């Protein structure tokens, strides 16, 4: 048994897979630098990122996996979970060892893990598509700050680009400190210097446009009006809209009337 330590990047992960095939060291334990605890009794290899080798592994995955499984692979990576990295590594090694269609063998723990973790990530992607609430700022840009559990910005970019093609918008991941900016033609990654702006998920921002207050109020009113008291079911409500997302939601912000 041996430790493999990589830097947490996609390239690093793929490089680790390549390395394993070059050296065939038997069973290894893959960890990120951030999580790694040196162990006196276990040898440890720091993976060097190598673009070319990583590319070859990625091509290999593309050639052997269906589109759906490739997507699961990528989503699992975006989970940023240690057990996700392990599952990806083991999955890739299993795939290339067998050299055959193993992607649907749900009896294998890593195939199953990929499927399960990817599902969680997809769920959060879907939730972000649902729970983002833009605020129309005075500079004409629709803005929203978020802090998702998983790194889902790369997954939601296309959705918002297609949907809001005629308005400028920014979606900012406050936790990972980067965002997406759409300028009416392309989506770019940006970093905002928050010394100027208040770091916020978007609500109660001082620089909102004039009409913004009205629509927020109308939306809150609407949310209240649609409720049917006789059917109230708070448990179900919280199941659908977990409390950790409430801070994004205009309809959940109540000021004193």
């Amino acid at each position: 048994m041996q430790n493999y330590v990589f830097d947490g990047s996609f390239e690093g992960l793929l490089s680790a897979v390549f390395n394993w095939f070059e050296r065939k060291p038997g069973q290894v334990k893959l960890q990120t630098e951030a999580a790694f605890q040196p162990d006196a009794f276990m040898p440890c290899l720091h993976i060097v990122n190598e673009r070319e080798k990583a590319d070859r592994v990625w091509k290999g995955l593309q050639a052997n996996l269906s589109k759906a499984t490739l997507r699961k692979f990528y989503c699992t990576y975006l989970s940023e979970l240690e057990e996700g990295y392990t599952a990806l590594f083991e999955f890739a090694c299993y795939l290339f060892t067998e050299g055959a269609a193993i992607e649907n063998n749900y009896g294998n723990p890593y195939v199953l893990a990929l499927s399960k973790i990817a599902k969680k990530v997809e769920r959060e992607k879907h939730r972000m598509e649902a729970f983002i609430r833009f605020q129309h700022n005075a500079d004409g840009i629709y803005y929203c700050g978020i802090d998702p559990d998983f790194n889902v910005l790369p997954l939601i970019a296309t959705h918002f680009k297609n949907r809001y093609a005629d308005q400028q918008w920014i979606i900012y991941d406050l936790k990972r400190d980067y965002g997406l900016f759409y300028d009416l033609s392309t989506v770019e990654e940006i970093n905002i210097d928050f010394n100027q702006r208040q770091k916020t998920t978007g609500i109660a921002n001082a620089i909102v446009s004039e009409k913004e207050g009205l629509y927020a109020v109308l939306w809150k009113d609407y949310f209240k009006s649609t409720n049917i008291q006789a059917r109230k079911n708070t448990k179900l409500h919280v199941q659908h809209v977990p409390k950790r997302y409430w801070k994004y939601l205009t309809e959940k912000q109540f000021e004193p009337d």
Partner: protein
Amino acid sequence: MSERLREKLNILADAAKYDVSCSSSGGNRKNDNKGLGNSHASGICHTYTEDGRCVSLLKILLTNHCIFDCAYCVSRKSNDITRAAFTVEEVVELTMNFYRRNYIEGLFLSSGIFKNADFTMERLLRVVKKLRLEERFNGYIHLKTIPGASEELIREAGMYADRMSINLEMPTESGLKLLAPEKTHQQVTQPLGFIKNQIVQFKEERKLIKSTPKFVSAGQSTQMVIGATPETDKEIMQTAALFYKDFSLKRVYYSGYIPISYDNRLPMIGSQPPLIRENRLYQTDWLMRFYGFHVNELLNDANPHLDIDIDPKLSWALRNLQHFPVDINVAAYKVILRIPGIGVTSAKKIVQARKFGKLRIDQLKKIGVAYNRAKYFIKCADSPYQLKDYQGSQIKSFIQAESQSKYLKYDTSQLILF
């Protein structure tokens, strides 16, 4: 100005909230005019009400003025309530501004009937036209067809709406007669039939001429109010099955009646809406649409009502033990689908996974099978050597005992109704 708008929105959203036939799924309108919005086949629920229903569309009435007096409806003429009406511009502006902020997937527009059907339908049409043509809005639009409106208006509206619906309201003609003497099922079937034929016709034309516009591309749906009149579940689901067949409906919605009137033809104000029954009807609907069940298998003269304490699939299995146990490792997909505790996703995974070797209990659990429920109905690689020959009633009590703790966690206030 904005105060009046607030007031209208409160009144007209409140009056629209009882209509449940509102989901944004099934749209596929691409944003290829560099305008605003698109709609997905799956739809997005942007938020949920405190009763747990999804809010994906701005669901409002154009007006709650109405010349009719249907007993089950808040907008009925004889009801003493504040009336309001939106202008076409107001509806358009609300929709656009809510959509731009990602509050909603689109608009669900219904209306009370002012003056007459055509006058009302014509205004609904103006709203959709303005949204599509002037605002270049590609989000989802669901229009309620006004019963009695002329075919030309319905036809034109169908060019801009993604879905149209017209509510059956009561599952049987006699039920409808009792509560809405001015209405008949025929008033509903006629436009449903017309729209269905138009959909077919436009599809045919699109095959020949690519530029033919789509017509009601997400199909049509209807809604039945449950529990206001004394229909059996069998009558309700047979009506549903018939409507699915005759009008190729995308969905039938079942709305548990919420008492809103002191009318003595109806359940008393304060009595609880039949939420569990409504849920069982939806489950039955799913079994018909996705699990290959025929309505007569689930409901028939011997079983005119769905069980309240167990779901319809388990109920069917217990009445049909001769089909079990099913061998997971050899049975056809369709047969596996009928096993209690196995849903569409796990059934698909089973069929994939067993190619790699016979499946064992622990693998089934990992795949997502509710094994404690399924175990009475299946055989797999390491099933205990001999399964005891249990009676349906015994299995039911085992399963209920197993899931008892789970049920106790639910709000008991909903369970004591029946």
